[in-house]
């Protein structure tokens, strides 16, 4: 059995274990129906871990060694000679270098490095570029408009107004402070949706630059999510004003609001970095993701209340990070209570695992981006 099949098998097994543990209630194998038991959480974590391991094996098979191995036997005859008499692995005796150029940075294409860690240090080294890219996005988006940066605040308000007209007139949901409910949900959702959709194209769209100069690819993904985050921060101003105007008093629990925002940012980065890597290899991922994203929007109680969902779907929402984070954002904002820790913990662990897996996929494949784009 090849590593590739093994990897794929592990991924499927992991997903199966995860889903079975989480949906134990629905499948009728739960010890205590209705309550999320610790065994379920354990099962979910183990399942996720198996999946991640599977992805590792799958990617490793396709990336590094296989590539190297094939190089040896598929090279043209002319080159074979140089291969046999492989010269000294390090062409330059470092001890020979003297005073004046000893501290210059050295790049060695064969240096052993762990992509997962290496890309992190590169991202840190290019933090000034990251900041420049985010501010470029903002400036370019609002520069030529009369209202300038005010648009970042007015835009979500207008969307909310449209939704209010539609939903208050047509559907009449029973939700307290419905305008704030909708706007809060939309803002957090926009952070996720905009962040991931721009991040998805980050590697492709910046290939013109990356063809001419070395820049770590992850900078562009981080910039996409970063500028979605900055946009959200601008839009918080009208949100809080609307809340107060609508009769929600400013509360101490508002201090908790940065937490769900950061959790959503991490979620967007994890998803974004994963698809950004996949899109380089599968062009139709863009269309698939766009459909999936809009399905996800309607699946998640953002513009409608949880109470209209059938019981099974209500239970499924426990494992929906988007809903968990949006809920954790609305509760302290509107009701003045903090979210229950266990529901948040599960989503956060899940999102963290996803981000780690996505980052490792992205960094392992990033050497091949330049060959593909």
């Amino acid at each position, binding site marked *: 059995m090849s590593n590739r099949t093994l990897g794929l098998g592990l991924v499927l097994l992991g997903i199966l274990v995860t889903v079975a543990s989480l949906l134990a209630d629905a499948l009728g194998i739960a010890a205590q129906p209705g309550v999320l038991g610790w065994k379920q959480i354990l099962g979910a974590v183990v399942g996720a871990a198996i999946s991640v391991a599977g992805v590792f094996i799958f990617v490793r098979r396709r990336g590094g060694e296989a*590539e*190297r191995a094939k*190089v040896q036997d*598929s*090279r*043209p005859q*002319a*080159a074979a000679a*140089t*291969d046999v008499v*492989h*010269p*000294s*692995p*390090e*062409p*330059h005796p470092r001890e*020979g*270098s*003297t005073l004046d*150029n000893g501290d*210059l*940075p*050295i*790049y*060695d*294409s*064969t240096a052993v490095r762990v992509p997962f860690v290496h890309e992190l240090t590169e991202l840190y*080294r*290019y933090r*000034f*570029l990251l*900041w*420049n*890219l985010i501010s*470029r996005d903002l*400036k*370019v988006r609002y*520069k*030529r408009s009369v209202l300038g940066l005010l648009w970042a605040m007015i835009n979500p308000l207008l969307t909310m107004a449209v939704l209010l007209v539609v939903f208050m007139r047509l559907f009449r949901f029973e939700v307290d402070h419905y305008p704030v409910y909708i706007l809060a949900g939309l803002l957090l959702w926009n952070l996720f949706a905009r962040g991931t959709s721009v991040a998805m194209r980050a590697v492709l769209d910046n290939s*013109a*630059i*990356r*063809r*001419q*100069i*070395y*820049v770590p690819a992850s900078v562009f993904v981080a910039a996409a999510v970063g500028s979605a985050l900055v946009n959200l921060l601008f839009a918080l101003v009208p949100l809080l004003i609307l809340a107060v105007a609508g009769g929600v008093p400013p509360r101490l629990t508002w201090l908790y609001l940065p937490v769900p925002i950061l959790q959503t940012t991490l979620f967007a980065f994890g998803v974004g970095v994963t698809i950004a890597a996949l899109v380089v*290899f*599968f*062009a*139709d*991922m863009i269309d*698939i993701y766009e459909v999936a994203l809009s399905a996800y929007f309607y699946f998640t109680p953002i513009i409608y209340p949880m109470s209209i969902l059938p019981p099974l779907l209500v239970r499924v929402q426990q494992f929906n990070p988007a809903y968990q984070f949006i809920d954790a954002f609305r509760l302290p904002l509107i009701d003045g209570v903090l979210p229950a820790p266990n529901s948040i913990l599960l989503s956060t662990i899940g999102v963290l695992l996803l981000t780690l897996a996505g980052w490792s996929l992205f960094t392992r494949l990033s*050497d091949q981006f*330049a*060959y593909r784009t």
Partner: protein
Amino acid sequence: MVRVDGLTIGLRGVSVRYRVPTEPVSTLKEHAIRLLQGRRAEYREFWALDGIDLDVQRGEALGIIGRNGAGKSTLLKVISRILRPTAGQVWVRGSVAPLIELGAGFHPELTGRENVYLNGALLGFSQAEMEARFDRVVEFAELWDFIDAPLRTYSSGMITRLGFAVASEANPDILIIDEVLSVGDEAFQQKCLDRMHEFRARDTTILFVSHALESVKRLCERAVWIEHGQIRHSGAVGETIAAYQNGL
């Protein structure tokens, strides 16, 4: 004046292979169908570089000549770490700044000032480092009157001047130039050439890719001729150019 300890760039058996699919397999759908049918995707292999060995001494100006598609630009890409080679070793000491297609990182809606900072960031500079260089960049580009106007109002000559100014103020250890000397008016061209000679005096290593053999002859002391991803000839610039012209 080759110094034993002065090696800046070393390539050993460097090969770059591109795999061009013989049929479209760039979508998930195609892959799924192929997986179900149990077929593997077929690729045509193309070696853009094929076992290149090359040493460049510090302060040397090396010309790279050859026909279109010979692998010249790919060679620059493995040295500036845009591409990791499929096989072999690339070893580079010092910072590398490319001067390829000037102004690639520029955005038309941003002002000249904002673009200078953005481009500096792409070259890996920090805010403080760019602030220290900013005045000299604008001075060299002769753009004081326009620096706060959006780039879309610039002429193409002005954009090129700004691009060259940023890249040359970067003051790298290794400067990579891919066919850009034909920019701006004559006075500015002269300024660029002067700047090149300054670089040479400062011990900057220069890699110069061009079809303009005269420019190569003027700027470089050594040249390599690349064909089909292999070094066909390497030696003094006059000698290599002569070999190249005879081989055409």
